[in-house]
């Protein structure tokens, strides 16, 4: 694989996705060993650069890098020069000048990782960029770990009936899943109120519905998205109560899916909003399984970008 950056799944090929997922399966076995350490990225320097708060994604990337013996460093924006007005360009080049070879970037602005990648090779420093979530654009490693989880439980993605329910407008998780799942041949249904489900999705090869019961009907995978606090009461939605009633996944609604359907959520969960307690903790929930797979997927991505026998220029 020749890829230097992972900025999104929109331009990822089926072969690339399959390679990442297969490698991730192997990494999961590494993680199941008593001594979770490989030398694959020894001597490589990975820097996590988070311009937005995050718990699981950052921890997951750091764990992935450390498991493969990379040196990791992390920049917390509030404590950095960015708060003094330093540009993304200068921040990156400064860290690159210290030897960072890979930046894992989370940013509130869509496209910031692409901007970061555009500086690689231009100022005397070569580095890789991994998008760890940019604005409302993409969160490619989340998309990959979701697909890994589906594969683990369902064998293959092609032909699976997947429904994604909630705030499709603002969700970067949704975009990465939509792009990735369409490439892999899943049957996608998107569901939400018109305020959170833009009509423009209809140009993609997806089914769209505003009715959650209809969306869940016959599904192999039910994925709900986190509803951000700031959208809960206003002109997107009248109230949390109404959203939970119309779009929340509870035991009754989940019964419309196939009996062996799995229930997914990227976290953090709003219990009682997108998902009821009983199903979040129920037998069909694979939410914690997603988290475990996150480390494996990030190992696979870092491995292909930085290490192994290939792709390292």
């Amino acid at each position: 694989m020749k890829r230097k950056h992972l900025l999104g799944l929109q331009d990822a090929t089926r072969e690339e996705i399959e390679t990442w997922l297969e490698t991730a399966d192997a990494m999961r076995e590494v993680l199941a060993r008593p001594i979770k350490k490989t030398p694959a990225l020894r001597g490589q320097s990975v820097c996590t650069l988070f311009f937005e708060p995050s718990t699981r994604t950052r921890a997951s990337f750091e764990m992935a890098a450390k498991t493969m013996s990379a040196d990791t460093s992390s920049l917390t924006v509030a404590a950095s020069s960015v708060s003094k007005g330093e540009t993304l360009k200068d921040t990156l080049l400064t860290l690159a000048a210290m030897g960072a070879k890979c930046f894992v970037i989370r940013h509130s602005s869509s496209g910031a990782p692409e901007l970061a990648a555009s500086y690689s090779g231009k100022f005397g420093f070569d580095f890789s960029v991994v998008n760890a979530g940019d604005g409302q654009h993409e969160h490619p490693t989340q998309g990959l770990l979701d697909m890994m989880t589906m594969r683990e439980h369902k064998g293959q993605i092609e032909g699976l009936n997947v429904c994604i329910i909630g705030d499709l407008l603002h969700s970067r998780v949704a975009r990465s899943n939509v792009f990735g799942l369409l490439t892999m041949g899943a049957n996608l249904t998107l569901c939400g109120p018109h305020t959170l489900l833009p009509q423009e999705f209809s140009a993609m090869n997806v089914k769209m519905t505003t009715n959650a019961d209809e969306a869940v009907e016959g599904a192999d995978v039910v994925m709900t998205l986190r509803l951000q606090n700031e959208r809960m009461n206003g002109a997107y939605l009248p109230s949390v109560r109404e959203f939970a009633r119309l779009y929340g996944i509870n035991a009754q609604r989940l019964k419309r899916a196939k009996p062996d359907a799995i229930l997914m959520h990227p976290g953090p969960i709003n219990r009682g909003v997108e998902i009821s307690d009983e199903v979040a903790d129920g037998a069909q929930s694979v939410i914690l399984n997603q988290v475990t797979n996150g480390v494996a997927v990030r190992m696979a991505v870092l491995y292909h970008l930085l290490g192994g026998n290939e792709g390292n220029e």
Partner: protein
Amino acid sequence: MNLLIKNGRVIDPSQAFDAVADVLISDGEIKAVGFDLGEADEVFDATGLVVAPGFVDIHVHGRTPGQEYKEDTTTLSAAAAASGFTTICVMPNTAPTIDCRSVVEDVLSRARTEGNGVRILPIASVSIAAKNEQLTEFGELKEAGAVAVSDDAFPVQDADFLRRTFRYAKTLGLVTMLHCEDIALTGGGHAGVGKGGGVMNEGQVSLEMGLRGMPRVSEELAVYKACALARDEGARVHILHVSTKGGVDVVRAFKAIGAPVTAEAGPHHFALTDEAVRGYNTGAKMNPPLRTLVDCEAIIAGFVDGTIDCIATDHAPHAAREKDREFDAAPFGIIGLETSLPISLRTLVERGPLDLPSLVFLMSTRPAEVLEIDAGTLQPGARADVCAFDPNERWAVTPEVLRSKSKNTPWMGQTLTGRAKATWVAGKRVF
């Protein structure tokens, strides 16, 4: 001292002239257009070139005073002259705002001392500091040399304030030039940059890129409001940078009932779509944003039937460091003077429905009429503002070749066809 511009294809829409002919200039004025005009002190051989009244751009951000790092009067006038423009009207969003006599005079005085002779005419802000709370002194501003008033970049939202602006502008005989945008729908427009406001057209591309969209209806609603008020007040209103089919349709409907409205569109809005934004290209970020093919076609149809009166570039220079940012944080705007002719030639003439005289009309005669500026004609006695351009010369857009201080153009790196070869203002060669 006289000058003979010989043997060019002379196109003057103001007198429906289009023939290979000579233009005789004497004492800064056009003496004659025709054949066998006799000897002259100086001869310019325009064989193979189009000779036309100098272009007029009624929508330019001059950036001076206050933002000379983006553009100063020297670079601005150089860019204009090298592109066939002899008159440009500059918008008031400078620092300070063009909202009082002294700033109008500053712009005019710099044009005399730092420019190359290209006429730079200031447009005053409709309100003090562009806050849309208190009207500026239209009377004194006009006396000082302001050619119109505008709210560009800071669109008036309050219909009552807009109505009173129209009434007061009518009192002084000034055209009000409006940036039509309902900012409730766009997340603030220019004021929303870096604060979560819309950054591009709302549509398929914005959805895929996860960028906040500015819906097309935000323009249509504001155009409707402006046109309806113009109709009721009988006030001359000019709609800046129409970018949507809805905007074109509304202007057409109001013109049909005789409302005193005119409208302009920029080359980027009829030549490019929001696809140009892909890759988070801040060189294609502007407000109003690039729209869709349907909108480009509607604007071109608007030129054909006269709904859209003229081409105006909305030349908006920004420093490289300002555009080399996250897409959300980069400022709106692109430079336009130096690409206006080739892009319009390609889109409207070579691949479009217009002929060359119609294009000259849109770039010279008509914009001068819109603001009642004495330009856009080669009639005997008129000031000798003339350009000669080669419609077939190919040239590459590179940072080095552009004379504007800023290089923020979506056509960077492309080879374009059509280039000014000589420009005269009041008979004096400025390029």
